[in-house]
């Protein structure tokens, strides 16, 4: 896999996992004057590096 493909896959996964409307288990928790977004997603995701390494096999 080329460096460009690596980058493209990383970027795609980043958008898939960290962008868009959150539907499930969303709650806003505020501590002090800091608003934190807590996402109660019932999933365990593999480290992105691990996904890419596995994808190379």
């Amino acid at each position: 896999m080329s460096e460009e493909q690596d980058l493209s896959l990383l970027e795609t996964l980043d958008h898939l996992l960290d962008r868009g409307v959150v539907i499930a288990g969303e709650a806003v928790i505020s501590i002090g004057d800091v608003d934190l977004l807590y996402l109660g997603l019932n999933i365990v995701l593999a480290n992105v590096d691990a996904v890419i390494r596995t994808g190379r096999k």
Partner: protein
Amino acid sequence: MRFLIVGAHLRDEDVLGIAEPIACGAVWLSGIPLAGEQPLADRELLQSAARVRAELLGRATFIAIRYGFAATPAEAAAKCAPLAEGWKRVLEANRNNVEMTLKVVAREPKPRPDRHDFASGADYLRALHGATQAADVDPRFRDAVSEIGEHRWSHRDGRSLECALLVPRAEVERVHDAGERLKRDFPDVAFLLSGPWPLEVFVDHEP
């Protein structure tokens, strides 16, 4: 049967043949069927979702739903129903738009606070938030990006910022060209321009 929900779409034909269209009030959801108790952390599923997302965007613009929402059609429709009317208006207004993303390395990256330096979790989180918000880019670069089109800046962490651009589909190449000019004009600013993406940031955009 449970489905991994990928996005919200204006029409069922925007989804048919690529994913399962699920009626949800004024819009349609796209779903990828899940086999039995298939875990969402499954690598194949993750890659399949990425492929489906790209194919759906090739057909029509949609509102992206973050990976991790799995439900039966009835559950998905019930959960999204309160948002459907608003989504319909956004989808109608942005039928011909896509998003593009510019990730920029901050001018003076702020080190991530060390949690051991703080007496309380709240103090640590406040410092973490402060470091993230303090990250900035060269104001001339920021101005140049702003001229490309409608945009929204956001802080990702202490080391980078992100600018989401709302771009007419017909102008994606123009934005790539603008990216090339930015590289030339700001050789010291490290950035990555990517896209097109579905509506991920402009999910409430109604001009």
